């Protein structure tokens, strides 16, 4: 058979020479390479003590944004779920009752909104599809768990709290923001 690369070597069964048989030169050569690396710059980062810088538009864990008055922006239109290539998003919509105007911005809202983080591939298509600027991916990394159940993120984990708002201004270009908000 024709070799695929020119690096392949034929196996030979010739007897080893004396230098090869005592092994020490080969071991010393190997150790030299090993010790040389101690003084080199390390390729790894000591996470979580140290963090590798991430892009301003890094696609990490999702957030469901609230508007300036604290009402949820999501109207359960389902465009994120239909755009999602991994089919990670599910939602159940409900109608807003009288007196809930400060909780939900639109007359319809998502009573259940779940992202299966095991399915999610963090592609950001949900963010792109959202007509209400409700869902964003954030700088935050997705933690790991022992239970599969813990990866189903519901509204309790996704909706941002008003005390600790998440800045997504870097992810929104100004022309997109003005275009989308003028529609409302």
């Amino acid at each position, binding site marked *: 058979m024709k070799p695929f690369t020119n690096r392949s070597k034929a196996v030979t069964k010739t007897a080893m020479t004396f230098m090869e048989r005592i092994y020490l030169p080969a071991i010393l050569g190997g150790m030299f390479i090993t010790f040389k690396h101690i003084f080199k710059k390390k390729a790894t980062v000591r996470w979580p003590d140290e963090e590798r810088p991430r892009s301003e538009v890094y696609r990490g864990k999702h957030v469901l944004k609230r508007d300036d008055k604290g009402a949820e922006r999501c*109207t*359960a*239109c*389902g*465009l994120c*779920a*239909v755009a999602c290539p991994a089919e990670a998003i599910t939602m159940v*919509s*409900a*109608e807003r009752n009288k007196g809930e105007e400060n909780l939900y911005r*639109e*007359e*319809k809202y998502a009573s259940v909104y779940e992202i299966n983080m095991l399915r999610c591939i963090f592609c950001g298509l949900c963010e792109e599809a959202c*007509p*209400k600027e409700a869902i964003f991916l954030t700088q935050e990394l997705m933690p790991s768990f022992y239970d599969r159940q813990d990866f189903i993120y519901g509204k309790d984990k996704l909706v941002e709290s008003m005390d600790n708002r998440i800045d997504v201004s870097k992810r929104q270009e100004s022309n997109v923001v003005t*275009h989308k908000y003028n*529609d409302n």
Partner: protein
Amino acid sequence: MPKVTIDGHSIEVAEGTTILNAARQIGGDCVPPAMCYYSKLDVSGGKCRTCLVEVTKGSEKDPRPMPKLVASCSTPIMDGMEVGNKTSAKVLDARKGVVEFLLINHPLDCPVCDQAGECDLQNLAYEHGASGTRYEEDRRTFDKIDIGANIQLHMTRCILCYRCVNTADQLTEKRVHGVLNRGDASEIGTYIESSIDNEFSGNVIDVCPVGALTDRTARFKSRVWFLNPMNAHRNCDKCSGETVAWMFGDEIYRITGRKDQYGEVKEFICNTCRFDTKDLAKWTIEGPRHIERDSVIGQGHYELTPSDSTKELKK
């Protein structure tokens, strides 16, 4: 029989056929879109102006072109007539303007609206409209009105096509809703919210090209593209019982009439079938409906059963 040429396609049709119906007989791209014309109604059309076409040659006897674009749904054909639809730049430009006018007072609340995904106006705007609006004034607003227990009227979304009024006229002698006021202020009035108690009143939901009349029993239940439309039938003493069941798993979320490629129902169905029979056991499911490949409703919709698809593969 008179011969008519639409976008270069010739066809011989019966005397008195409208341009729109002649185009539908040819089919394909030369069919003008229609928002108000509804072939199943005795009276409809002439309101929305989306079906405007250019007549470049009036007839064999009088080959002069018509001076203005004409509404194809209400203009009968003449022998030797030549019509431009998709091929006419004038028509496409006018249609863009018509879409802009239709959208002037439309709230664009598609993310909330139950009709989104199967909305004629959405499709029309997607195909013919501009991406932005030049309208700066406030859009007209109305309160939601419940027409009976099962139908909800969102007057804000209405484009005043009169289809529902014509449907009510055709179904019952004593219709209780019509169009009130004039011009910009006109609205579908229900005479102090008196309910339509006709057994076929639910069909106004099907004929509505936008989300102005929606099914209250399916309100905000799900988006159309998450549901699977299945042909279903049952023995009904009031109508043919042939419907489409919009299913999510084993649950029926919504029942509608069977719509053809132009979004027109084949038969009107009764309110019992539409609103009150959501139990799967009462229906015989025939199989999935055919959905156009580029439709958003086709998401996750499979028209072949596993055994069918293996047969397809073996072919």
